[in-house]
């Protein structure tokens, strides 16, 4: 690895602002989050950004790096650097609070809007529900359950860009895992919430979310599953009833 400095352009400001260039020493195995942390600690303490775990679990450090949304704590500079330049900006499709920190409220409110939360009807006095690990539902839920809520898919989605009310891949992926949770009791409400132009039927199946998801989840596949499930429930009915 060369010891020349990295030229790092970082977005400063809110919706209005500009890129400011910093010189950051290169290190072996350096991540993009290391670069941002170096700038904040050594060069400009007023730089705002968000992180917590540093190991790819919490989903808080996603940013746009060289034009692509990524989880910065697990993105090695050496894998994405162009020459000796990096451009780091806040995530797309979300309001910028300051510098690299975006307002995630709308993103998470949409999870609520997609009925992306569990509700059962058992109490602590009931036996454990038995969910067979090999059952189809469990397998389908497994495929999407590792989402860390980083917002990379949401920032990469062109439908979110053109339809601000669209629930987005993360919320729909969560809804899909829950439609495959046999213990959940709000299935029809969920299908109604994810139907139509603001939900799964607006998806173009372009697959940017799937390509960029750092956890290798395929929201596109989950959304396709929802499209079929919702359309069948509207026309023929589902195992939970007709929409």
């Amino acid at each position, binding site marked *: 690895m060369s010891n020349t400095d990295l030229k790092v352009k970082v977005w400063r400001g809110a919706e209005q602002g500009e890129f400011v260039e910093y010189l950051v020493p290169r290190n072996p195995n350096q991540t993009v989050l290391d670069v941002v942390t170096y700038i904040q600690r050594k060069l400009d303490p007023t730089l705002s950004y968000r992180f917590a775990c540093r190991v790819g679990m919490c989903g808080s450090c996603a940013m746009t790096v060289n034009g692509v949304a990524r989880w910065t704590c697990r993105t090695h500079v050496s894998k994405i650097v162009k020459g000796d330049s990096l451009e780091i900006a806040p995530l797309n499709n979300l309001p910028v609070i300051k510098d690299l920190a975006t307002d995630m409220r709308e993103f998470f409110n949409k999870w609520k809007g997609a009925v992306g939360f569990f509700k059962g009807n058992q109490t602590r006095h009931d036996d454990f529900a038995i969910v067979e690990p090999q059952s189809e539902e469990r397998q389908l839920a497994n495929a999407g359950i590792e989402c860390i809520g980083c917002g990379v898919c949401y920032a990469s989605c062109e439908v979110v860009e053109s339809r601000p009310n669209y629930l987005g891949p993360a919320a729909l992926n969560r809804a899909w895992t829950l439609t495959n949770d046999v213990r959940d009791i709000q299935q029809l409400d969920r299908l109604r919430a994810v139907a*139509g132009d603001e939900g799964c039927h607006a998806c173009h199946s372009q697959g940017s979310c799937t390509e960029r998801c750092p956890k290798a989840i395929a929201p596109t596949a989950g959304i396709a599953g929802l499209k079929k499930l919702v*359309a069948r429930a509207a026309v023929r009915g589902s195992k939970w009833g007709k929409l």
Partner: protein
Amino acid sequence: MSQGILQAKLWYAQRISAMILGICVAIHLIIIFYAIRGGLTAQEILGRTQGNLGFAIFYEIFVLACLVHAPIGMANILQETFPQTGIAKPASWLLALLILVLGTTAVIGVYTGGAI
């Protein structure tokens, strides 16, 4: 019916009509390959289609599948491109009407050979 449920039904209708169109296009292409052996004349085409109820029914199914499929797709595109204009619904109804009228006229034309 809520907007979401309507969209879900339209999506379903578009998928089903796409399946029909897939089959129709395949048959249509095979017929074209068969028909153009040794040149193509209006006479030859009319000779095949005139009074042939099978051809008429097949192409009317083709027209009906287009009637369902294309306006739904166009409405989606218009709604997404020009969300504030309210153009999607009237334009897609107009397209549906055009496909039905022009398509059916063509089917009647090749069935009767222009006798009507």
